[in-house]
Every structure is written in C-alpha cells, then in structure tokens.
C-alpha cells in the first residue's frame, strides 16, 4: 500500500494526476494528504519537507494551539503539544524548522481519535516549531518560536 502511494506521488507531476488517481479509486484523499512518505523525513529544509509530504501550502489558523516552552534549556527534550480544534482534523505534522531534517513526526487520526497529540522532540537550535494540520482536504498551520540554549542534535 505504501509503495503504491509512493509511486503514485512520484509519478504525479501536478495535483491533476493525483486527482485522477483518487477518481480511479487507487488511493483515498486522506491518504494523499496525510501520512508522509519516508523521503519527507529526510528532507533538509522546510519547503522540501512540505513537498515530500505532498501537502499544498498551508494557511495560517488560529484554531491550532501549540503548547511548547518559550525557552527550552535542553534541546534534546522539548515537550510539544498540538491541539487542533478545526473540525475534521485528520492529520497533524510537527516540524522544527532549523533541524537538519525539519520534519519530526506526523500523526494520522482515525476512529474517534481527536486532533490532539503530545510528544517530545529534539531541536538543534532556536527555531519555529510548526504544526501542519490537515482537515477536510485543506492544510492549515501555526507556529511557535522555541528558544534553545543547548542544542539536542549532533555532538
């Protein structure tokens, strides 16, 4: 299933091709919009990570709350909690902008799971922590700056 999706995404030069694949029933829309392929986790910058996830540019939303410390003393463990009150939230991705590989984790919800996730991430330096929310086929985002005094990536 994953291999199929990857091929489909790789072969798609634009949204049109994806739409055709959706229409053909090869992949469901949520599958296209949520669930990052592994390549997205290896992307070295934000734009590539977004592209790798196959997400359109996100619009800013006030309905996304990111709970993270203003100043993290230890970049190796930065608690991050994302709550999306957007109806129909199906996925949340967490991105630490200045990390070597900015995409930290992505979460896909189903079967009653709420638009909420809490985890702990590593941050190499002071950066914006960005939450990308997919809801009803649209993409939303919010960001919060976290100051890091000791980096948690690399030696």
């Amino acid at each position, binding site marked *: 299933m994953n291999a199929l999706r990857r091929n489909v995404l790789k072969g798609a030069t634009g949204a049109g091709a994806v739409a055709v694949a959706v229409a053909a029933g090869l992949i469901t829309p949520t599958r296209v919009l949520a669930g990052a392929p592994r390549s997205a986790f290896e992307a070295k910058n934000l734009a590539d990570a977004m592209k790798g996830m196959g997400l359109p540019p996100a619009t800013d939303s006030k309905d996304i709350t990111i709970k993270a410390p203003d100043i993290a003393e230890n970049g190796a463990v930065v608690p991050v909690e994302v709550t999306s009150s957007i109806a129909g939230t199906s996925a949340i991705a967490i991105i630490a902008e200045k990390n070597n590989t900015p995409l*930290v984790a992505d979460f896909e919800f189903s*079967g009653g799971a709420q638009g909420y996730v*809490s985890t702990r991430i590593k941050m190499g330096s002071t950066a914006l922590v960005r939450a990308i929310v997919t809801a009803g086929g649209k993409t939303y985002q919010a960001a919060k700056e976290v100051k890091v005094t000791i980096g948690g990536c690399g030696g």
Partner: protein
Amino acid sequence: MAEPMKIRATMAGDTADIKVLMNHPMETGQRKDAKTGQLVPAHYITEVTATINGAAVLKAGMGGGVSKNPYLGFKVKGAKAGDKVSVSWVDNTGDKRTDETTVG
C-alpha cells in the same frame, strides 16, 4: 528484543486519554560518539500505530527528531473503560514491539 513500552489509558468524560512511553535510543545518525569520534549509526522508530479493540486510531511517522525514549499522548473519543489499547512501533533496523493495555 526491545524493551517494553509503558502505556496508560484513562477515561476523561467520553474521551480516552492515552499516554505511551516507548523505550528507544532514537539515534539520528548525526551524533558523534564522544570517545571514538565516530558517528553513531541511525537507530530510530519510524512508525507507530495504535488500535482500540483492533480498530486503527492513530498512525504516526517519526524521524530522528523525536526525543530519546519517545513519549506520545493522544485522545480518542467514544472509547469505553475495558477497551483494549494496542500500540506497536517499528524502527529503521526492522526491530519492532507491540504492547497492550486496557482503558481504565
């Protein structure tokens, strides 16, 4: 064999609050060993899935940017006390682990 996870699932109103603590080094592959100066090979969880009574509720992809011994908290509406929660992870070396608990 990987160390077991700690999973706690409690009801808050009509929503189950599920907290998972995984035991994993989460090496990014970018860190150098302090003694040898060699890069420590990447070793991190790539995928986590959670089910309640067999039905998928959460599928997560992770990169090396998740902290050591990953913590994961999520909420599921409509779950009931006594429901079986199962969480599994797979790492980049192919190692895997599944643990279960019941909603209390």
